[in-house]
């Protein structure tokens, strides 16, 4: 009975498109991170997360998040916005990593850009997850026109 709830795909809707594009973006960024060998400045810029695991691991996390976002665009049928949770969490955590290393680890000032950019991306996902996702967006207009 529980397995049946997980079986099948959701119809393609507004959020599906956003999640697919975001998933691809995160995957590509993850590949870039995984292929990067961090310089000293880069290490300082992301020290709070690089103390936990190397940059390649975080690249893998971004790739995994991207793949999860891609999956969440159509599955499971009963939950349509869990992909945003992953993307928002990771984006804001990444912004916090840039921000906290600026405060606690005396990272370069260029980290401000990272804080603003990833913070805004996180806020964007936070806002977009609250948008309505009608089955057929045209239905409302069609109904109003009669």
């Amino acid at each position, binding site marked *: 009975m529980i397995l049946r709830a997980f079986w099948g795909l959701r119809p393609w809707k507004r959020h599906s498109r956003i999640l697919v594009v975001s998933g691809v973006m995160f995957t590509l960024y993850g590949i870039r991170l995984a292929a990067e060998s961090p310089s000293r400045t880069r290490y300082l810029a992301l020290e709070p997360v690089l103390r936990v695991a190397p940059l390649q691991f975080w690249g893998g996390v971004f790739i995994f998040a991207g793949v999860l976002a891609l999956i969440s665009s159509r599955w499971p049928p009963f939950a349509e916005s869990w992909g*945003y949770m992953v993307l*928002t969490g990771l984006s804001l955590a990444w912004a916090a990593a840039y921000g906290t290393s600026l405060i*606690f680890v005396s990272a370069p000032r260029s980290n401000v850009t990272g804080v603003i950019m990833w913070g805004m991306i996180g806020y964007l996902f*936070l806002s977009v997850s*609250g948008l309505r996702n*009608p089955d057929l967006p045209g239905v409302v207009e069609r*109904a109003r026109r009669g």
Partner: protein
Amino acid sequence: MLDGANLATVIVAIVGLLGMWGSHKIAARASIKNSRTTAEVEAYVRAVDMDKDTIKGLKERLVEVLAENKELREERRVWRIERAQKDAKIEALVRQNLLQRDQLREKNSGQENL
């Protein structure tokens, strides 16, 4: 030991989790609104369809009523003609009756004079 870098790691983790929680809350609220909107739109579309059916039925009925009206007008026209003919006939009969009465009265007065 919770030095600056470790604290930063903890903050990163907390911010990430808070972001996930916030996103979940907002998405859940949107999902409820979405369900309500879908239900309202479905009800609206159903009502519009029902109205369309009613209007279609009324239009068909109107065509029938107009056809009936035309037939009844035609019947009324025929009846008016018939009534006019009958009125003329009655008038002729009345006139004939009056004439016959006059003739009878004259005949009776002639006999009395004799």
